[in-house]
Every structure is written in C-alpha cells, then in structure tokens.
C-alpha cells in the first residue's frame, strides 16, 4: 500500500535527510519526494510531500519513528491530522474572560475552540470553565504552553492534560 504524506519540516540543513532516514531503515520504498524550499508556511516551515510504499506494518512503524523524532506529519492521504486538547481553568471567570480567551486561542494558527463549558459557583473564585480544542497534529505542546501563559496572566489556575 501507499501513503501520501505531507511533513512539516524546519528550514534548516539536514532536516529532509532526518525525515527520510527511518523510511530507508525500516524498509519502506520512497516513491516520490516533492521538496520546494521556496514555498513556506506562515510559520516559516517547509511542507514536503512524500509518497512511500510498503506493507501496512512497515508504514505504521515509519509513522511512529517520524513522530518519535518530533517530525510533524500534517497530512496523510489528503486528510489533515487533528488532535483534541482539553483544558480546565479555575478562577473568577466572567463572560468577558471567556470571550477573550476563546478569541486569543482561535487566533493561533491551526487551532479552533470546539467546545466550551462553564460552571459558575456561589463563590466567584471557584468558577470553572472547560475548553476542548481541535488542533493540527503536533501543535499540542505549543498550545498548552500558550494556555498556561494566558491563564496565569489572568490569575486563573490552568489544569492541562498530562
């Protein structure tokens, strides 16, 4: 079988070699590599299209190897990869904070707030909100860091996923 991948590589020497290395090592056939350094994403990274061929087990191992090297896989066979991120904030949260927080998260590239839940308490400082975000694969760490910063600016306790 074949996988058409789009990898998100940093524009520094050696990154393409690093991404191709596990494919050769694990026995996947490289059918095509389209690498155009002058086309960049807004983040300044280079999207590289790679088609590989092999049995399913080999291809799965290649994907695992790429992930463990922190190489971001943006697309598999034309489908954008997303992951869900949940966070809970505790504090004296008013409507304005929620709007503002959602707006600032939506501003980040590749992130969308998909669900929001608010639980007000008799004691205002005990109120809590839960946010579920959908994000492009590989952005999780960066988003969690952003939420933490945002929360501490506003004096909220941020409870992120492990």
């Amino acid at each position, binding site marked *: 079988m074949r996988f058409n991948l789009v990898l998100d590589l940093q524009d520094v020497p050696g990154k393409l070699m690093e991404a191709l290395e596990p494919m050769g090592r694990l026995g996947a056939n490289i059918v095509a590599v389209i690498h155009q350094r002058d086309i960049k994403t807004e983040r300044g990274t280079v999207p590289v299209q790679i088609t590989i061929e092999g049995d399913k087990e080999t291809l799965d191992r290649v994907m695992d190897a790429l992930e463990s090297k922190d190489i971001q896989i943006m697309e598999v066979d034309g489908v954008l990869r997303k992951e869900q991120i949940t966070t809970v904030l505790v*504090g004296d949260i008013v409507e304005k904070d929620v709007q503002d927080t959602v707006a600032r998260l939506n501003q980040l590239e590749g992130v969308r707030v998909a669900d929001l839940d608010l*639980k007000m308490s008799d004691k205002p400082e005990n109120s809590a909100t839960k946010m579920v975000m959908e994000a492009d694969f590989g952005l999780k760490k960066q988003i969690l860091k952003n939420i933490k910063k945002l929360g501490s600016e506003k004096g909220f306790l941020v409870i992120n996923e492990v």
Partner: protein
Amino acid sequence: MKIVILGFGAVGQGVARVISMKKDYLRSKYGLKPQIVAVCDHSGAAIKEEGLDEKLLLETKTEKGKISLYPSYGAPGVDSLQVLEDVEYDCLVEVTPTDIDDGEPARSHILKAMEDGKDVVTSNKGPLALSFQELGDCAGKNGVELKFEACVGGAMPIINFAHETLAGCNIESIYGILNGTTNYILSRMANEGSSYEQTLQEAQEMGIAETNPYQDVEGIDAACKIVIMANSILNLPVTLKDVDVEGISRITSESIALAKKEGMLIKLIGEASPDALEVSPRLVRQGSPFAVEGTLNVATLKTDLADDVTVVGKGAGSVETASAILSDIVSIWKIRK
C-alpha cells in the same frame, strides 16, 4: 551488618519491625545478619554493641515514648552525631523527619557517616532535594553507597527499578502521582462531589492528612520527589527551587465536575522531562494508568527501548516504607559481603 537508626518515628519503628520479622529469611536467603547497634530519637539514644532487641526497642518507644529509657542500655541526652562518632557500625539508616529549609539534621548525619566510610540508607527527602549533587559526590569520593528508595513513593519501587531493572534503557521523562494525601483528597472530591475544604478536613480526621497539611497540599512533598528522580534517574543537576509548583488548594468541585464530563480526572502530577520540571494539577483520562484512587502512588517512565513502564504502590505507611529501606540494606549487603 551493624546498623545505626537515627530517628525512631513511624519509619524508624517500621525498620525495627521488618528486621525483627524477616530475621530468619534474611539469614537463610542472603546470609545477612542485621544487628541494630544504636537507635536515636529526640530523647537520646539506646546503644548496645552486640545488638539491641528489636521488640524491646518498639516496646520502649510505644510505652515510654523515649528510646533513651531502653533498659540498661539507654543513654539520655546523647547527641546523634556523637553516636555516629563513638559507635562501631557499617550502615546508617537515616529516618529523621524531613526538613525542606536546610535538610538538617539529616544532611549532617549523612555527610558524617559517608566521610567516615559508612554506607547510608535514607527515607529523608530534605537533604536530597536540596543538595543531591553534594551528597552524591561525597558518596563517590568515599567509595560508599547512598541509597534512598524510600524517599520516593514509599513502597513503590522506582529508583532501583529504573537503575537496575531498566538498565540499558535511556529514560527520557518521568510522570507520576507522588503524594498519597493529595491523591486521596482529589479521589474523594471526584467520587463525592465534595468541596476541597470539607475533604481536607475529613482526611485530617482520618489521619491521612497532617494537622499542618501545607507540604502535601501545596505540592512541596511531590516536588522534593521530582527533584530526587530528576537527579538520580535523569541526571539533571536540579534542586527544589528549580521546580514550578502548584498544589491542589485551588481545585474546586466545579472544575472536577467539568473534567468528569469529558471523561477525565484531575490529579496532582509531578513531571520531570527535558521540557519541564513541575508539579501541578493535570487532567488524566479515566481508565488510564494515572487514574488510581485513594492514597496510591503511580509513576510512568518513558524509555527508548521499553516504551512506557508504569509502577503503582503504596506511597506511605510504616512497614510499607520500611520495606523499601530493607531492600536498600539488602542491596548494600550484596555489594559488601
């Protein structure tokens, strides 16, 4: 093997109890004959070169409250450093209460013993969280063993597990629930929907939380354990002040209810990784290895060869913690015999 025990609280008494319980087993299995030659508490010491009787030690402490009242061999007011100077021994068991400001008196005890060429086993987090590198260097320089399995997770094997059982694996990061008191409180809050204040009070009444719960609920105790693991397992030369610490006192029943709706629980998680050195409340999936209840501790090691390895165990308790100390004593014996 001649042993000196400094500190005779819950853990120290547990050590005397397990040595007494396991005497025949240790002799037949390892050829180890542990002799407790001195015990110190705040009142002074009990010293006997041919070995004190464990049962009589426990009886004296329970009935009279002072180890210096041990029949015939009690020594009221004797200083513990003096005991280390005068008594002939092979291994120090340092189990005085943890102090997180300067790590004393444990730090001085441990340094003195190692400089005198003695092996040390401790459950005391203070000195290790504040000056791990110094103590490690001192052990290396004097060619002695410094073992501290009981410092992290009580009976849950983690330090020796990482060094010996997982030998050959590169351990990249460690995540864990490292404090039983906070795990108990958060588990109860999740199950009962009760408030933090109410649950803390209940835990105090049951003796699970201390009268002054500060070090547990504000994450300091877990942070000490993260520092010890970061140094010992990840080789990061960090101390307590390098850890970002947030406890559980701001967790509300509202936030727990919201997490539960998403199939998640809130747990106090310690993390030592190249990205972070922190203790903070985090969301974990119900049914995941971190979803343990009650006072249990759990730790996951992320490794290059074995992938994730998770251990669970009792994080506190007299005999439970003493089991970790005994395993350290046995490993020192295997090296020395």
